[in-house]
């Protein structure tokens, strides 16, 4: 397997350096744009392969191995839990000292999907001017949330 470019993990490396607790590491990696990008670009199977590459494969020799493995682990949390739950529970990587804590956080938080709100742009041209006196409730109001 070919490693991801080292620069992919520059932001994650900075977060890793200043992390005092596993929760801080998880929270800030999850907010990191590069980690989100890795989650978008790689499938669950590719992420699992990458974690294995950086923790037990040839990738362990790379300087960024630990940070890359943590980043891929957190990237997994963007995927549906059913796709990686068993692999995550079985994962054994002594080089990741916070693996047990991160595993627990990911499994307990189960934040496997992202919710996006599509808010229409409000412009002067599409505002309907209504006289309050004429307002009547017609039918049932059904708010819509788009998830993706």
């Amino acid at each position: 397997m070919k490693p991801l470019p080292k620069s992919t993990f520059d932001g994650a490396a900075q977060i890793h350096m200043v992390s005092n607790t596993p929760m801080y590491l998880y929270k800030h990696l999850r907010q990191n744009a590069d980690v989100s990008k890795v989650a978008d670009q790689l499938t669950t199977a590719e992420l699992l392969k990458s974690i294995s590459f950086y923790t037990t494969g040839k990738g362990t020799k790379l300087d960024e191995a630990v940070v890359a493995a943590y980043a891929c682990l957190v990237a997994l949390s963007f995927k549906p839990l059913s796709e990686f739950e068993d692999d995550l529970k079985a994962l054994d990587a002594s080089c990741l000292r916070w693996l047990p804590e991160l595993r627990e956080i990911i499994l307990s938080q189960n934040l496997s999907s992202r919710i996006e709100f599509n808010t229409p742009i409000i412009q002067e041209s599409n505002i309907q001017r209504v006289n309050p006196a004429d307002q009547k409730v017609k039918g049932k109001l059904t708010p819509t949330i788009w998830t993706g």
Partner: protein
Amino acid sequence: MPISLGTRYSTRKISLVTREENAIDNEQQLNLSNSLLTDLQGKAKKCREQYKTCTFLVDYSPAYNCHGLAFACRRTAIHDSKDLRTILEDDCYEKVQDNDVKPGDIVLYISTGDIEHSGIVVGTGGAYIVPLIRSKWGIGPEAIHHANVCPYDFTYHEFYRVVK
């Protein structure tokens, strides 16, 4: 006995207990490879560039973290919030109100129950609207900084002092 993690670094624990003899889990990272040290140096430089108003005293040290600085005299790293609560309880720390903070008090940065950072107050009052803190940023730099100028969220914080 140090545990070796590949060729990159090794770790070991030291004996650390509270006044009530509760053991505190801890970890020193030792014998980092030259390439990791160079890497850390580069990241520490980035911190200096990002936080220009802070005074950096140590570029990096994997031997201790913020909690190790605040509660174990820079001898080791402590990661577990439960252990920190045990120290606060066993070692007779009491909460201090923001308007009563004095140099030497401990500040905790708290996020959803996790004590994500701690430091020692080194300056209050006068020109300092928020206290000046001396703290260690993970395995990276040790710095003097305003409480709200660092990689940690100061929104939810608590100050503590040993009272007996």
